[in-house]
Structures are given as C-alpha cells and as structure tokens.
C-alpha cells in the first residue's frame, strides 16, 4: 500500500464515520422523539397506540421499549427515559426519591389469569382462593386433591401431579398475583409475601409471560399464572376464580373493568391502588391497572406532545384496547385521569 492509497483509505473511513454520525439527522429537525420504557404486559397495545398516534400527530415519535416494570421505574428515576411504565404502582419510598416528582396515569387494565394444561378436560376449572394458595404453596400436589374435586363437581381429574409454573424474573404480573394471594391467604402473607419477585415455595420458573405460557403449553398437568392476553392468544383455557362476593368469575374485559368500577371509591387521587380481591358482583378478583409514570415537569416541546398523547390515549385509545385483550378503564376513571393531565407542566 503506498502513501496515496493509505490516505484515501483514511479519508474514506472518516467520511464513512461522518456519514454514520449524521445518520437520521435530516429527519430529526422536524420530528420530536420521546423515549419511554417499562412494563412488558401493555407493550403490544402501547406499540399500537404510538404508531396510531403518529398518524394523528405526524411530528411526534414515541419510542417505547418493554424492559419490565422494575426497569421502567428505575430508568425514569435515573432520567434515562422521558417516561416510565409499570404494572405495579411505585412505593412511597420510591416516589419520595423521584426528582422531579412522578405522576401515575392508569392507561388500561389487565387480569392475571390461572391457566393450565389438562388434556381431555372439557369444562373450565373453578378455583377458590384456598385452592390457588394451596397449589402455589406446594400443599396441594395432586390434581385428584379433595379440595379441587369438591370445587369442580363432575370434572374427571387425571391421576397426575400438579406442575406449578411461575415467573423467574421480577414482574408486575407476579406483584398483582401475590398481592391478591396475600389478601386472601394469611399463610401466604406471612410465609411468602407480596412483591414483583418472590421466593417461591415450589414450581418451575419461566422468563416473562411468554416463558410461563411456553412451560404450560409444553407440560401436561401444569398450572400457572399469566396475563389474560397471553392465555388468549395461545388458546389456553383460563380458570374461573371465586371473588369476595362468592361467585366464580371468568376473566373478561368486562369483569376486569367491573373490578375497577366497584372499587372506584377506594381509589385515591394519585391512582396508586390495588384493586385485587375487589368487593362487589361480577368483579374478577385478580385485576390491576397498568400505569404510565410521567414526570411533573418536562421540557416544553416534550410536555406538549406528552399531554396530547395522554388525552388521546385516555379517550380515543381506549377503543383499541379490547380487541387486543385489554380491559378499558371505567368512564369515571377516564375523567379523573384526564383532569390530572394538566399537572404535567412545562419547565
């Protein structure tokens, strides 16, 4: 290689690097990019929302990445993203550390369902809180257990051990599920507790809703908990769960929305509320909100887009929820949330 050649190599590689560095700069001038991260459960709906919203507001791109609820809280508190998303509300201690303060906006609702793999079973299972906690504590180990047979008259159970599947990663799904179990079972409350990650007394861990769904699909005799949409899209059966009113409720968009409607009075100003084990008829007991976490003050341009998006999602966006397996918010809650959009101020 002679001198001229090596110089042309250097020039062209510098040119190439500059080209890479300028990547996307042209389009950048007229669009505004908002970055968000967090919960995996609403990711399909959010990605739909953000691409629909871009059709309404062509200059706004909202990029959302599903890294998990805990990750969403951590990243928004570290200011590495513009907003976060979480299935479980933040704790008081976390909120106190957040600067600027963060607001919770409920966006849609979801249900944690018990799904199982029992080939040959025709009817849907009925489960009481006692049975569920017994299974997940490792106390009920056989499908032929007396409690299961008693709750499901007429069902012929196989003579097989129960294989329990749960989440291996920390997750909002686990938080909602264990929150419900801690409410209905004192033993669960003292021995295991509630939280996004647990020390499981028994069972097999799968990563993500998909991991658990996969375990259940592949293992006859298994039972586990996943978000409703994962059971639906994989054509897995879901169990009816006994609620506080004593009825067995099948998880549907309507029964999940009902859980919020019946507990409206107990939902505080900042929406950080648990609506598991809701009182009242027709309410599915293992339901929860999924939140966006928005800082109270944002740069002006971003604040404008963020507020527009929140208003759009809380009104127009709700209609997109049900086809994808999510439950829309009750109307009164939408009004309350819309009123709080004004709290997001420009810097």
């Amino acid at each position, binding site marked *: 290689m002679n001198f001229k050649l090596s110089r042309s190599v250097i020039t062209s590689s510098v040119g190439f690097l500059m080209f890479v560095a300028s990547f996307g700069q042209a*389009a950048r001038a007229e669009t505004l990019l908002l970055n968000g991260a967090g919960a995996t459960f609403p990711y399909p709906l959010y990605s739909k929302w953000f691409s629909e919203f871009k059709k309404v507001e062509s200059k706004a791109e909202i990029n959302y990445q599903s890294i998990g609820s805990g990750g969403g809280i951590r990243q928004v508190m570290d200011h590495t993203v513009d907003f976060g998303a979480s299935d479980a509300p933040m704790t008081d201690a976390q909120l106190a550390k957040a600067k600027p303060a963060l607001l919770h906006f409920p966006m849609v609702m979801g249900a944690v369902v018990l799904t199982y793999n029992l080939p040959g079973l025709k009817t849907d299972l009925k489960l009481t809180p006692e049975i569920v906690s017994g299974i997940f504590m490792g106390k009920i180990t056989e499908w032929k257990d007396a409690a299961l047979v008693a709750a499901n008259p007429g069902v012929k159970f196989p003579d097989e051990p129960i294989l329990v599947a749960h989440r291996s990663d920390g997750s909002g799904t686990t938080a909602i599920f264990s929150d419900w179990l801690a409410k209905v079972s004192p033993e669960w409350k003292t021995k295991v507790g509630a939280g996004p990650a647990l020390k499981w007394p028994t069972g097999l861990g799968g990563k993500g809703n998909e991991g658990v769904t996969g375990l259940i699909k592949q293992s006859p005799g298994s039972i586990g908990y996943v978000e409703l949409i994962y059971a639906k*899209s994989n054509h897995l059966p879901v169990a009816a769960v006994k609620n506080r009113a004593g009825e067995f409720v099948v998880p549907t968009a309507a029964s999940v929305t009902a859980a919020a409607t019946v507990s409206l009075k107990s939902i505080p100003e900042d929406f950080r509320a648990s609506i598991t084990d809701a009182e009242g008829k027709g309410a599915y007991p293992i339901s929860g909100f999924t939140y966006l976490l928005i800082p109270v003050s944002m740069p002006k341009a971003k604040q404008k887009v963020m507020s527009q998006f929140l208003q759009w999602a809380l009104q127009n966006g709700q209609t997109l929820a049900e*086809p994808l397996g999510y439950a829309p918010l009750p109307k009164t809650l939408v009004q309350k949330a819309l009123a709080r959009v004004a709290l997001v101020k420009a810097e």
Partner: protein
Amino acid sequence: MSAPSVSALSRFRYQLAARDSRRKVKNVLFLSFLVFAAILAITPLIAVFIYALKQGFAGLSLDFFTQLPAPVGESGGGMANALVGTAVLLALGSGLGVPLGIAVGVFLSEFGTGRLASFTRFSVDVLTSVPSIIVGLFAYALIVVPMKHFSAMAGGVALSIVMIPIVARSTEEILKLVPVHVREAGLALGIPRWKMILRILLPGSAGGITTGVMLAVARAAGETAPLLFTAFSNQFWGRGIDQPIASLPVQIYTYAISPFEEWHQQAWTGAFVLIAFVLSLNLLTRLILRKRT
C-alpha cells in the same frame, strides 16, 4: 522335535493371533468412534440451521427488508429499521474498536516484551472471557447514566469492547507470522521503525487483519445482552447516534417473548437473516484465508 513343543508353539501362535484380532477390533472400534464423534459434532449445527430455515424462510419478503415493523394485529411490516440499526451499531463499534484493537495488536506483537505488554496481553485475554451481559452493564454505567440517554453511541461502545480483544489478538498473531527478515530488511534501509510498521508490516498483513476484523464484526452482530441497556431499541428509524436505535438481535428477542404468532414469525425470519449474515461473514473469512495460503 517332540510333539508337546509343537503344540505349545501353535498355542502361542493362536494367542498371538487372538491378541492381534483383539487389537484390530479395538482399532476399528476406535476409528469408528472418531467418525461418529465428527458426525455428532456437526449434527446440532445442521439441526439449528434447518429449523431456522424452516421457520424463518416463510417470512422472507421484500417488505421484511424495506418496511418498519407493523403494529400488532396488522399484517405485513418488516425489520428495516433493525437492519439499518445493526449496520449503524456495527459501524460505530468498528470505528472505535478496530483502530484501537489493531493498535493494541501492533503493540503486543512489536513491543510485546515489557511488563506493560504482558499486563495488556492478560487484559485482552480476560476481556474475551468477560460475559457480554457484564459489558452491557459497564457501558450503561459509563455512558448511559452520565449522558442520561440511551443511545446508539453507548451501544457502539459496548460492541467495541466485545470487538477489541478479538481484533487485537488476531492482529498480534498475524503480525507474528511475518518473518523477522522482512522487518530487518526494512530497518536496514534506514526506515524508522514506525514507518516500517505502518508501511510495510501492516499493508503486508492487511488480508489477515481484515479476517480478524470480520470475525469480530460477526461476533458483535449477534450480541443481544450488551445492547439491551445501551442502544436500547426503537420502533421507528433512528434519530441520530445520541438517540436509541433498533438492532436485529434485540428485535428478535423482543418478538420472541411476545404473545403473537405473527411476531414469532418475524423473530424467526430475523434469526434466519442474522444466522445467514454471520455465517457468510465467517465463510468469507475462510475464503480469504484459503486464497492466501
């Protein structure tokens, strides 16, 4: 000669023959084990490749290479942004990692005797064995947290850390293959050492160094873990290297853990494209090396 001694001799002969046939059987058994081992070793590659081909090929279309991902429930769409993103990340990673890697390789090969050199060699070896997820955590703490932004740049830095040791070691080894007399001939002409290295040694080994670079690129192209917390991802086209950017491995991972069939399909198609890219880079490396010998 008496009869007994004859029978003893023939018995001995029989024993010898028996031992020989045992040895022969052992020999055949062992040699067939070697063939069996060779078949067993390549079975997984063929199985993985066939499965990816079967699952992924159906989704291959022009749209896959030119369109943005479609939202859930809408058919079509592609991974064009992830393909471009991976190209940008690899360019950034190479831009940082290749010059540094080559420089370190030159240092180790040409000035590789002192204490600094042996410590550098140790560091390079250790860096190759650092699990890539730890590299991701490091780039996150180093760049993302201070900049308060996920960015293509941070992803590029993470990939460059993966690439540096590969480039450095291959450069070192390839320069060591250059006979000493080439260097001495250059120096004997009165050329300073640095010029000898830059003008004679490096150009002469350009082919070999390129193969090292290509292997490093192939390795970096498939990395998922270092990008999760650095380049992040983006469902649109990137907006500059200080913003999050999509990449093929991360997109595959996201789609694989989603609940939707059409996204699984996209994940397999992505996996197929990724394998094809990585394997053809490796193949190309081989061809270059073969040509040289």
